[in-house]
């Protein structure tokens, strides 16, 4: 350990400032400007060190996370197995039928699943949260479907939205008795297309040779 570097020697007295003060100064985005810090070479060196430390803490954890990922993912099915038992049923949506044979209904959760599946048949767009607006528990009541979505960059969004709306409408009228007055699609994100899968290359965090001690 090189204990004789300038910063190591002066870390407790940086032209009258402490590391803690400089860290607080960074936290405040260096405002209000403090000339005794801004014009001190020692403080500038220490500020650069602190900023690097923050950046590297994030990078170090990302590398540790990459190592974690390589160790395997058997923890994933365990969690999925556990929560898979917890169904999000939501409201119960009745079918009109002869009451003497008992009740017939589909859950709101199942209807949301139908809507997602319908949306997933359309390219260039991925639908997110789905909300059924209106009283779905009353047969014949008119409802609207609100859908959040993200689109693929470069895809003709209008075309994709029209297709999603048609697919959802068709799916709901086929499989439910819901009276769908409208399907509203709100695109909140345009995502970059991902490059085709290639052998994973590790993030380049190797130090520049000039950085070596």
């Amino acid at each position, binding site marked *: *350990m*090189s204990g004789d*570097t300038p*910063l*190591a020697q002066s*870390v*407790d007295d940086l032209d009258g400032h402490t590391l803690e003060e400089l*860290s607080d100064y960074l936290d405040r985005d260096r405002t209000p400007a403090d000339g005794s810090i801004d014009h001190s070479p020692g403080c500038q060196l220490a500020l650069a*060190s602190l900023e690097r*430390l*923050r950046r*590297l*803490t*994030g990078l*170090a*954890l*990302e*590398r*540790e*996370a*990459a190592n*974690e*990922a390589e160790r395997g993912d058997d*923890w*994933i099915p365990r*969690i*999925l197995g*556990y*929560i*898979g038992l*917890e*169904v*999000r049923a939501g409201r119960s949506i009745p079918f009109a039928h002869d009451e003497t044979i008992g009740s017939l209904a589909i859950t709101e*959760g199942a209807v949301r*699943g139908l809507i*997602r599946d319908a949306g997933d*048949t*359309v*390219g*260039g767009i*991925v639908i*997110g*949260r*789905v909300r059924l607006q209106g009283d779905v528990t009353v047969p014949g009541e008119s409802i609207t479907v609100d859908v959040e*979505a*993200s689109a*693929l960059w470069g*895809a003709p969004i209008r*075309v*994709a939205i029209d297709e999603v709306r048609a*697919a959802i409408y068709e799916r709901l009228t086929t499989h439910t008795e819901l009276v769908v007055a409208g399907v509203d699609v709100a695109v*909140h994100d345009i*995502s970059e*297309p*991902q490059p085709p899968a290639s052998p994973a290359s590790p993030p380049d*965090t*190797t*130090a520049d040779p000039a*950085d070596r*001690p």
Partner: protein
Amino acid sequence: MIDLLPRTSLANADDRTLAGRAADGDLRAFEVILRRHGPLMRAYATRVLGSNDETDDVVQEAFIVAWRQLPNLENTVALKSWLLRIVTNKSIDRVRARRHHADIDELEFERPDGETAATAMEATSLDEALSAALSTLPEDQRRCWMLREIAGYSYDDIAEQLGLPHSTIRGILARARKSLVIQMEGWR
């Protein structure tokens, strides 16, 4: 139906889309969330806990809580920081439980498994050097540093989370900062 557009896979969807689907009960979307954020949550939990003995349990508990609370999450864009908060809560619960059984002085000098040999100067990259430097910190310093720098907790948040005075947290972070700056000095 015309299908001129490429099918977009869930794996490429943004966090808000995935969180929305998971909130609606889509397990596939939740699996993508687990794959995307799980490894970092595991690495973070290991650092906060001080070893990986309880990482599996803590991360599992955290994601089960996340699954249950997702329908109430307002800002699904900030999914990662929300998950970090849940993992922090679950990790600190464990640390507190442990303190009932162990002397705090012992914890101070504990090292994570298998991380005794590496030092910052032997590392081959900057981030590896920092990992090594982090491992040499006493447990309370490393824990506070992670809460501050990774989970973005304020001094007050950390004080509340750990049940310690604000001034104590300041002191712990000051020692961590000084130690890390000096250890990383050779890498300038």
